[in-house]
């Protein structure tokens, strides 16, 4: 709850022009700044949609989602994935739910690290719907 309050205060200040305020919330990292170029949805399967993005320096990126955002791949490299919390915010730093992401939106992708238990073997969440790949810690 206190993390939610800290994140909300940081984003609120960022929305009012103090983008540096987010540095005071070390749990949040901005990992992409760009636009949504295409969204494809496939209801009825585990990973239900893919958003294509373009970064500000024109690198292609892809965001997989189900009921939540699951994985961000930038220029072919896995940049972030569940169980870490991926969030997409709009130009006003407001969260965009998976059912409202659409082409043309200016977006930032934020990542909040998951608690350690979600990474550990005794929690049998499998691959969070990311079939065939499993959970790979970013950077490993």
């Amino acid at each position, binding site marked *: 709850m206190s993390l939610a309050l*800290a994140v*909300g205060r940081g984003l609120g200040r960022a929305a009012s022009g103090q983008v540096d305020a987010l540095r005071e919330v070390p749990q949040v990292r901005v990992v992409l700044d760009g636009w949504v170029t295409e969204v494809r949805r496939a209801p009825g399967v585990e990973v239900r949609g893919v958003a294509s993005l373009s970064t500000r320096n024109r690198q292609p990126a892809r965001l997989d989602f189900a009921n939540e955002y699951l994985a961000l791949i930038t220029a072919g490299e896995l940049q972030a994935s569940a169980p870490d919390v991926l969030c997409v915010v709009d130009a006003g730093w407001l969260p965009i739910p998976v059912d409202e992401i659409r082409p043309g939106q200016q977006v930032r992708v934020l990542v909040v690290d998951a*608690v350690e238990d979600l990474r550990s073997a005794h929690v049998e969440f499998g691959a969070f719907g990311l079939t065939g790949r499993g959970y790979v810690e970013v950077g490993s």
Partner: protein
Amino acid sequence: MSATAVTLEDVPALALGCGVLGSGGGGATDGPALVLAHQLAKGGRVDLLPASTVVPEARVACVGVYGSGTLLVETLPGPAAFRAALGGLEERHGSLDALLPIEVGGANGVLAAMVAAAVDRPLVDADPMGRAFSRLNDTVLAARLPMREIFFASATGATAHLQADRGDQLERVVQSLLPSVGGWGAIVAFPGRAEDVICMPCVGP
């Protein structure tokens, strides 16, 4: 460390932060924020307790809403359904000393604060779910403490006490209730002593 009050001025930040931690799911937070603001404006208070300050023998349980985020917008979740679910639990297990949100990400973080204000109980600063999930048995807490019962109440006044040997069975049963009660219900789960329910890996930053 002592309790921190969540005030009316904190509601927009809490709603925004819970929205971020919802990871694109977990239900919209703006409707629940209106209900929380209403509770605080009429004198309710939310005392946020650091998990480390909760005495081990304190009686706690997790509160939240289960069901469709879309339908949650159509019928705003007021405190009545949560009071009914809590009443069922307390009748069976005794009075609770504090509440936990069943999940912080999305609508549930804001709603847990609303319930705490409505029933005048402190709220533990913890996230038993770890991140927004679609299933109750997929929580950090469920990996440590079996989920065997749920106290359920709908906005339409229906209540149920559900029990099962396994969390996934319980998850399917509670899911089966939703079409007949308007798509969502208030739930209270994981009743127990603080030392069992508040697992340290789920206590946030």
